């Protein structure tokens, strides 16, 4: 066996040895925990939280008034969130079909909530198109993340705005 063949065999052996670990490491780094809007909880008493009968989205079932619904959407936050991985940026999918926008804040709190950092985003649209908000946030290690959103009421024509789902680390 010549030297070149030996090197090739070693490369194959090395690849086989590392493949499972690398594959799993890759899965963890790209880990994005996605949940439907149905995991969100209503905050305070204004607005009326409803879950759709099909896709697990949520909306404000109040017709045309100044009663925005505030919701808190918990994330099953990774024990050690990945850092610097742009592909895993937190996102929230929505359908903005109201005159007013959906406004969201992604918060990362220390586990006792004494320290927090946050980043805000606002919907665009007022049409029938599904879009997503993207957030830029370095989460607090060992803490937890959650989205805080306000959903406007149905518009005068009865159209509602929806939070479809969200993902974070």
């Amino acid at each position, binding site marked *: 066996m010549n030297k070149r063949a*030996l090197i090739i*065999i*070693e490369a194959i*052996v*090395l690849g*086989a*040895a*590392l493949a*499972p*670990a690398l594959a*799993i*490491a890759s*899965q*963890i780094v*790209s*880990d*994005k*925990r*996605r*949940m*439907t809007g*149905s*995991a969100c*909880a*209503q*905050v*305070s008493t204004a607005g009326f939280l*409803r*879950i*759709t*009968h*099909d*896709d*697990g*989205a949520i909306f404000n079932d109040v017709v045309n008034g100044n009663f925005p619904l505030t919701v*808190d*959407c*918990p*994330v*099953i*936050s*990774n*024990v050690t969130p990945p850092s610097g991985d742009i592909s895993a940026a937190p996102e929230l*999918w929505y*359908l903005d079909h109201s005159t007013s926008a959906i406004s969201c804040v992604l*918060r990362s*709190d220390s*586990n*006792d*909530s004494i320290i*927090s950092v946050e980043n805000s985003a606002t919907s665009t649209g007022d049409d029938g198109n*599904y879009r*997503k908000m993207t957030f830029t946030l370095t989460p607090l290690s*060992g*803490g*937890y993340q*959650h989205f*805080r959103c306000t959903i406007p009421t149905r518009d005068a024509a009865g159209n509602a705005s929806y939070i*479809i*789902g969200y993902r974070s680390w």
Partner: protein
Amino acid sequence: MKRSFSTAALLVALAVGPTPARAVMTDANGTIAGSLCQKVGLPGTLRVTADDGAVYNHSSSAVLTIDCPIASAGQGSKTLSGFSNLWYLDQSTSSISCTLRAEDAGTTAVNQLSRSSTGDDNGYRSLDFGNVQGFAGGQMHLRCTIPPRDAAGNASFVISYIIRDDGPDATGHKLGYHTFPGTNCRRIGSDGSVGFTTDGTIFNDLSGGNRMHVDCPMFTTRNGGSTGPGTVVWYLDDSPEQLSCMLRAEDAGSVLINSVSFNSSVNDNIYRSASLSGLATFNGGFVHMHCWLPVRDSGGLASYVVGYAIEPL
């Protein structure tokens, strides 16, 4: 000689390769805001704070009971002491009391640990729920009581919690496998009345009317692929009317939909599981479960969704 040694080292690495991949851990656990907790029973008033996602009892007279679902690795491991905590702020005369319940999949056996808060001040503290033995494929949840506001109006808060029962996979499930108790389900529409049992199941607490439609969220970590054989729903069907569940996968825009369903009409008192495997999911999409729970029968017997699990492939 150097090259021979190198080759031998590589062969050794191959032999031990999978071991350092502790990563066979199911990667199920996470810290969760109190806002995932749901109210149990009628007394007390559950509120979510306007900032940190904590929950508290807004009532000034009644005790509030909540159930806080846990994404469990379902490995049959013990919870990790020092890494399994519930954070709280106790500002009331009475304590916050919590019990971590580890149920087996059929909720016929339970291991549990109860703790109570200390304080009545402005100090943030935590309760340790380590060393509770879980069950393979079982569910975990925290059941807490939060006292009413004190005479000065101060409330007590459950801020966040994490229960770590992850570990080297002992059940052959894939990365991302996790279980949830039925208390993680939420009612859709106005039919039925939600009941949560002490062991973490959900049922329709009415004796008449339509079936109660609920949505049971779960998290997904993989991009696409199908649900594996560990994807199941545990239930007890004790009503003449059918109990049904449907696991749904949607793309991020809710345009594409796949689903797998099961219907039960056995009407007995036996805990069973139904497979929801083979559901093709979408890259970047969501997975969640719908169930329809019948009303109690004429003898008062109900049907229950005990818990559910997802195994990504």
